[in-house]
């Protein structure tokens, strides 16, 4: 037994020695040409990120470089950290991450930056110190306001409603929810609306359905649910339909238009959406700009994003894709996703 212990110690220390010899990348390095961008979505099974990736690939075809994607099987920070490390080891130029947990992934991202990898975030932000720019689909408060407004109109600004979010730590959803609460407190027109609970669908079809149903059962006077999570809105709609509550409880939120088309067309659900592919496209361009040190996240900087045109960096390093649209029966066909 002793020999085993000795053997394993020898092996471990030889590995460590070999690794120490490997060069450490310098902290500051500007790429001279297009680099590989590693996209790290929240979850591998979310179609949202598949579509965003097609936009990134379109951009890669245009300006060169490579867009790869690695996603965790669990929507947790721990899983994402493993992939952050993997991407760094694969020596990508930039990591584009949509975070499951803004703070938990920050140390790993900082470590990545030390290794010379640049970080941008998209869709769901991380702690600002851990990234250069954040590509947001739409202004957070604008999205929140649109959702709140949509719900208000549906329930005549009066009554109980709930929110069905994704995971408890998701940065983007939490930001929207905070905006909504602030807006409700600030503006008198929302005075008669009451938020009774925030539930979590955990990015799972089954959980979303069960939570939606549970909300309906637990709050007999519930008049509507806001669902700012892509998988959640169609799932909740299905659940309400099965329970026969589809007209009674109004649904609105953010969801891929194609998944909710049926319910949009019969008017029972409202949706606010944007062109997801464009987000990926934009992120790719931004990432390349950051890699080549052309973009440092300072407010006011501008860069060109191919066919989408020029973009300016806003406060806190945030770049907005553009305003979101309300999906109506009239324009629902325009949305490819």
């Amino acid at each position: 037994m002793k020999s085993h212990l000795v053997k394993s110690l020898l092996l471990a220390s030889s590995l460590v020695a070999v690794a120490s010899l490997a060069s450490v990348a310098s902290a500051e390095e500007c790429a001279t040409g297009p680099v590989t961008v590693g996209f790290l979505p929240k979850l591998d099974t979310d179609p949202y990120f598949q579509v965003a990736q097609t936009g990134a690939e379109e951009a890669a075809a245009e300006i060169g470089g490579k867009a790869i994607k690695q996603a965790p099987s669990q929507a947790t920070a721990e899983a994402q950290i493993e992939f952050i490390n993997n991407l760094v080891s694969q020596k990508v130029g930039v990591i584009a991450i949509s975070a499951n947990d803004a703070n938990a992934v920050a140390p790993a991202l900082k470590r990545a930056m030390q290794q010379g990898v640049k970080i941008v975030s998209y869709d769901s932000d991380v702690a600002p110190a851990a990234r250069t720019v954040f590509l947001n689909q739409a202004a957070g408060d604008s999205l929140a306001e649109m959702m709140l407004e949509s719900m208000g109109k549906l329930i005549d600004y009066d009554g109980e409603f709930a929110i069905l979010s994704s995971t408890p730590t998701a940065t983007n959803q939490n930001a929207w929810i905070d905006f909504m609460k602030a807006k409700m407190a600030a503006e008198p027109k929302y005075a008669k609306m009451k938020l009774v609970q925030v539930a979590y669908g955990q990015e799972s079809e089954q959980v979303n359905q069960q939570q939606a149903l549970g909300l309906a059962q637990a709050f007999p006077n519930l008049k509507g649910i806001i669902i700012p999570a892509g998988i959640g809105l169609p799932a909740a709609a299905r659940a309400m339909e099965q329970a026969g509550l589809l007209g009674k409880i109004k649904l609105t939120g953010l969801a891929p238009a194609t998944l909710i088309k049926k319910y949009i067309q019969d008017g029972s659900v409202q949706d606010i959406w944007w062109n997801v592919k464009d987000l990926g496209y934009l992120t790719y361009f931004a990432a390349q700009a950051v890699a080549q040190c052309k973009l440092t996240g300072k407010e006011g900087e501008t860069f060109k994003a191919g066919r989408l045109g020029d973009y300016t960096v806003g406060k806190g390093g945030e770049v907005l894709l553009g305003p979101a649209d309300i999906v109506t029966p009239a324009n629902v066909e325009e949305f490819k996703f």
Partner: protein
Amino acid sequence: MAVAESSEKQGEVVASLSGATKIFGGTVAISDVSIELRAGEVLALLGENGAGKSTCVKLLAGVYRPDIGKVVVGGEPVAFSSPLQAQRAGIAVMHQHPGLFPDLSVGENLFIGQAGPRSSWRIDRARMRSEAQRLLQLVGLHADIDAPLSRLRTSEQQLVEIARALSLDARVLIMDEPTAALSQREVERLFAVVNNLRGHGVAMMFVGHRMDEIYRVADRIAVLRDGHLVGVERAQELTRERAVQMMVGRSLDGLYPHHEPTEAAVLMSVKGLSRDGAFEDVSFELRAGEILGFGGLVGSGRTEIARVLFGIDQPTAGTMTLDGADVRFASARDAMDRGIAYVSEDRIGQSLVMDFSILANNSLTVLDEATHGGLVSRSNELAFAKPFLDRLRLRFHSYDQPVSTLSGGNQQKVVLSKWLATQPRVLILDEPTQGIDVQAKADVHAMIADLASQGLAIILISSELPELLGMCDRMIVLREGRISARFDRDEATQEKVISAATDAGEAERDAMRPAVGAESQVFTPENPGLALPRLFARREFGLVAAIAAVVIPVSILNPRMLSGANLSALAMDAGLLMTVAVGQMLVIITRNIDLSVAAVIGLAAYGAASTLHLHPELGVVGGVLLACGIGLLAGLVNGFVVTYGKVPAIVVTLGTMTIFRGLNSLWAGGQQISADQVPQSWLDMTSANLFGIPAVLIIAVATLLVIAWALRSTVIGRELYAIGSNPAGAQLIGIPVRARVLLAFAVGGLLAGFDGALWASRYATVDARVAYGFELTVIAAVVVGGIAVRGGSGTVLGVALGTLTLLVINNGLTLVRVDPLWLQGVYGLVILAAIGIDAYVARRGAASRKGAH
């Protein structure tokens, strides 16, 4: 007894052993034994412990095959590859330690495993009942046929074993110590049956110890000694004295070391020591330097006394004093600390750890002393081992070889050394030379005498008369829990001891006084009519009560609980969970577990949905069949690795769980199949309603009913329970264990696959993460439903109720707006409560059935 009117004429040889020799390891169990069993005749087999009787029984029963010689049945030599074959050849055996199934009912125990041309795959309950009634009446057992066997006392279980043997269509009946646990009345009953069979021309063999019984029942008597057949004579012509002489007939001279009795003070004294159901009113004194023998038959209470002296068991009356002060030992450790050592008669089961080396076994009793600076020191260990092993002249290769590679005699030397290392003052030896070769015996005897002369007080329990007589200064003889005689060395003779141990010399027999070894008659069986519904009521009723306890208050707080929408959703959830839970139940009944069910659901769900997306022409039926096929395949993989690969189920299914999830992930490649990508008919499958009840629930309930029926009314179903209840026993009576377990896994997988189809239909959007973590919910539902994790018991109704309980609690808490995250904690409490209650009930049941086992 269903006996074909025998074609054998009275006296014709039906079965025999011809020149049979059997060797185990290095020991010769029997050598060149030839005995004949004749139609209409009872042959009694007499002999001391270790003479080879049980080996003869096992050869005829098909458990072993002779190394030399043959077993002959009906004039033809046969080679039984299993007990089932022997059974088919017409040999029925009443085993001494019945391999019955505690979880099956009395009636089922009578007939399980009897596959033959007559039986079908279905259980004919009516016929079984009538047969069972008849058999039980025959042996005089009043018991509820439907009661689980575990509720019967040991003597009653023995009667079931007897009845079981009688239920076979046997030409040959072998009875191995059938009366050991029976009362006089029951014994009479048995003999009446034997006489009946005699008239029908059945050839019988009776192995026993009680001379009185032997002489009543036997036509001829065969005597074995040290594995050899000494002689076979007609009972009428053989006097008891001569029989005893044949059994023991050795001279004693010069075999045992000389030993002077001592006059030292009394070291230990025992007064009126009793333990209910084991022994009564035992008193003796033990001096330093003397060897006190305990004689008597197996089961007379000697080992039970030793265990009380050593602190493993507690006495129910009487006192023990050591050095003049009263002592009470709460554990073996206590006794050891006071200087008592006990060398168990069960060398392999209680004295040695077979995987340990000689040195490690030796140090087991002195671990703390064999350390140096907190670490076990090899030199200290050797210091403890070498002296005694050398003195005992152990034959071995190295101190580090596993004891499993030693012969019996050398193993015993290690055991002795281990105990001597504790430097005891009182050494209790229980059959120390049983099953070991002559040379080793001599070494052991020499050591014992040596120890006595050094001042150790020794109790020597032995069934070997020469050993008792040669080694002991004094001896007490026990019979059925009481001291029947005390002898000094000078006055003892083998005949006297055997007389005292059996009833060979007893003039009277108190016919009504039960043996202390049998259960105390204070226990009165419950009225069988009420007992069954009462027990049934416990588990399932408790669940119903739990459900009500949640539903009622919650409905008051939030009437929505009983609303159509809520009940409908609940029903669908229940349908999905029940379907897969009942599959898990099948696996758990056989004493296995399947952790991969959720991964199978996911794989099947994704597989079906994605295939339907690409080939919608398959339709709903095609999709369901595909999902079931995936599940079946997965179940077969699990089953094969468990049964033929011999890897434990928990390990296999842990591995396949991750494999199937991984395959699911690779297949899906991050894609989802969303609701609009599959045919609408697929989605409608689960939204269908029948009179307002969701189709999913109806399908699930139908499945449960089918399985409940199969478990109750088919032979295969009962065999599954048997396998979980007593795997070794199941193997022994010829149940094809591997095939059945494979079936359980296959069906479990199939149901999981089917559940996957339902899941995909209900939840519409399917990705690689379907049912993640669901396996724990499934197992929780099964556990809460009362299915024992150790296998062998559980009902489908329990599964259904367990499922409902969990879901109702979930639903109820949601409806009263308890934070959904709290649900986890509640689930945990529910599981713990369920198994806690199970354990409590089981303990109460065991306590109410006092008695020796």
